[in-house]
C-alpha cells in the first residue's frame, strides 16, 4: 500500500472520528494491510508536515491524535458562530430607561412602575453589556441592589452626562421636539415643520445619533 493512500486514509479517519484516535486504533483500520505501529507513526509524521501549509494541524493529545483548526485562524473561525443580534425587547428598553432616569433604583422599584416583574435575564443582559452597574445595596429587608447607568452607557449614546437625556417635559412632546424623527404619523408635515421646531441645541447627542441613523438608512 502506498504511503500516499495510507496518509489519505488516516486523514479521513481522524476527521471522521471526531475525537482523538490512538495509533493502535488506526492500526486496526489497516488490519488487512498489516501495517506496523511504525508504519502509522511514519505516515502521521509526514502528515504533520503536509498540514503545515494548511488550515488545520495534526497534534497529539493525551488520548491520541486529532486534527484541529489552527489557532491563528481563530478570529475567522469564531465568526462562524456569531449570532445575528436580536432586537432588544420592549421590557429591556423600559428597564434601561427607568434605570437611566430614576437611578439609583432597585429592581422592586422598576417592577412597581412597570407593573410586572423584571426578569433576571434583562438585568444580566444590561450588566453584561456594561450599561448598568450596582451602585450599592439599600438597607431594607432583602438588601436590594440599587442600579445605575455606567460611563459605557453614556459613551454608547454619545452623551457626556445624564443631563443630556431629554427632560420629562421634552419627552411629553417628543414628536415636536424631535421633528426629524419619523414617528409614523404624517412624515411630510414633520419635514416641513422641521426648520421651525428644531431644538436650539441641535448639535447634541441626539442630533448626532439621528444623523447617523439617516446616513445608515441611505446606505
Amino acid at each position, binding site marked *: 500500500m502506498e504511503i500516499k493512500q495510507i496518509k489519505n486514509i488516516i486523514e479521513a479517519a481522524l476527521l471522521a472520528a471526531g475525537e482523538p484516535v490512538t495509533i493502535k486504533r488506526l492500526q486496526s483500520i489497516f488490519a488487512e494491510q498489516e501495517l506496523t505501529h511504525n508504519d502509522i507513526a511514519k505516515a502521521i509524521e509526514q502528515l504533520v508536515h503536509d498540514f503545515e501549509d494548511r488550515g488545520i494541524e495534526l497534534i497529539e493529545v493525551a488520548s491520541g491524535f486529532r486534527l*484541529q483548526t489552527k489557532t491563528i485562524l481563530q478570529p475567522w473561525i469564531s465568526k462562524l*458562530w456569531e449570532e445575528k443580534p436580536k432586537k432588544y425587547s420592549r421590557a429591556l*428598553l423600559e428597564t434601561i430607561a*427607568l434605570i437611566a432616569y430614576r*437611578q439609583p433604583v432597585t429592581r422592586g422599584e422598576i417592577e412597581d412602575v412597570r407593573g410586572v416583574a423584571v426578569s433576571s435575564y434583562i438585568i444580566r443582559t444590561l450588566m453584561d453589556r456594561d450599561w448598568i452597574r450596582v451602585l450599592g445595596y*439599600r438597607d*431594607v429587608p432583602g438588601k436590594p441592589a440599587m442600579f445605575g447607568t455606567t460611563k459605557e452607557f453614556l459613551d454608547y449614546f454619545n452623551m457626556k452626562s445624564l443631563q443630556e437625556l431629554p427632560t420629562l417635559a421634552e419627552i411629553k412632546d417628543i414628536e415636536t421636539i424631535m421633528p426629524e424623527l419619523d414617528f409614523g404619523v404624517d412624515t411630510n408635515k414633520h419635514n416641513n415643520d422641521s426648520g421651525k421646531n428644531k431644538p436650539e441645541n441641535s448639535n447634541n447627542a441626539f442630533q448626532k445619533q439621528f444623523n447617523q441613523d439617516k446616513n445608515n438608512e441611505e446606505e
Partner: protein
Amino acid sequence: MSKVQTKTQTVVQSEMPFAIVEGKPYTQMPTDLYIPPEALEVILEAFEGPLDLLLYLIRRQNLNILDIPITEITKQYIEYIDLLGEMNFELAAEYLVMAAMLAEIKSRMLLPKPASEDLEEEDPRAELVRRLQEYERFKSAALDIDELPREYRDYIVTSAYVEQKEQYLIPPEVDMRDIIMAFKDILARADLKISHAIEREVLSVRDKMTSLLDILRERQFFSFDSLFNPLEGRQGVVVTFLAVLELLKAQVLDIVQNENYGQIYIKSLQVEE
C-alpha cells in the same frame, strides 16, 4: 427485516435455496407452484403487498407487464392466497382485494366483445397494468434511492477540533429614540395610575445621587460640607442637597451630628456585597 426474509428474497438465485422448510432447502420453485404453507407465509411477508406479489409472478415467468396472461396469473395468485388465508387472514385481506380484481378482469375478458364498432371497450387489464407500472417505477426508485451515497454507510461528514466553540453574541444596536419612547410609554402608564407620581424634573438630582453613591462606596464616612462644590453655584448646591435627602429617604446613608452645632457627617448605610 428478519433472517427468514433475507432467505426468501434470493428466489431467483437458482443455486441458492429460496426457502428452507423442515430443514430441507428448496432450490427451485416447485413446478406445480405448490409451496409448503410454512414457506408461503414468509414469502408473502417478503412482498410489499399484492402488487409486489403480482409483479413477482409476472417477472418470474419473464412476461411483459403490458401483456399479462390473466387466466394463468390469476390461477397462481389465488393459489397463493388460498394457502395464506388458512394461516393469516389479516395479511391476506389486501391480497384478497387483488384476487377479486383479477377475477373480475378474467370474467370480463371471457365475455364476448361487443359487435358494435363505435363502442370501443377498453382492455379490462388496462387499469391493472397502469397500477402495476406505477408501482414498479416507485419500487425501482426506492432501490435507486437506496443506492445513493448516504451518511455513515458511504461517507462521514468530517469535523476537526476547535479550541473555542462558544457563541459570540453581538449585542444589538440600540437607538436612544427607542429608550426614550419606552420611557414615554412608562410615563403615560404611570400618569394613568397615579396622576402626580412623576411630576418634578429630577434628573439632575438623580445624576448627583449616582455620584454620591460612588463616593459612599469609597468612603464610609465623610463631612457634609465636603459634598458641596461652590463652583456648581446655587443650583448645584440645591441639587446636591436634594440628592442627599433622597438617599437619606432611601436609607442608603445616614446623617450624623455628634453635638449641637457640631460638624455634620454623612455615614454610608450601604451593605457590603
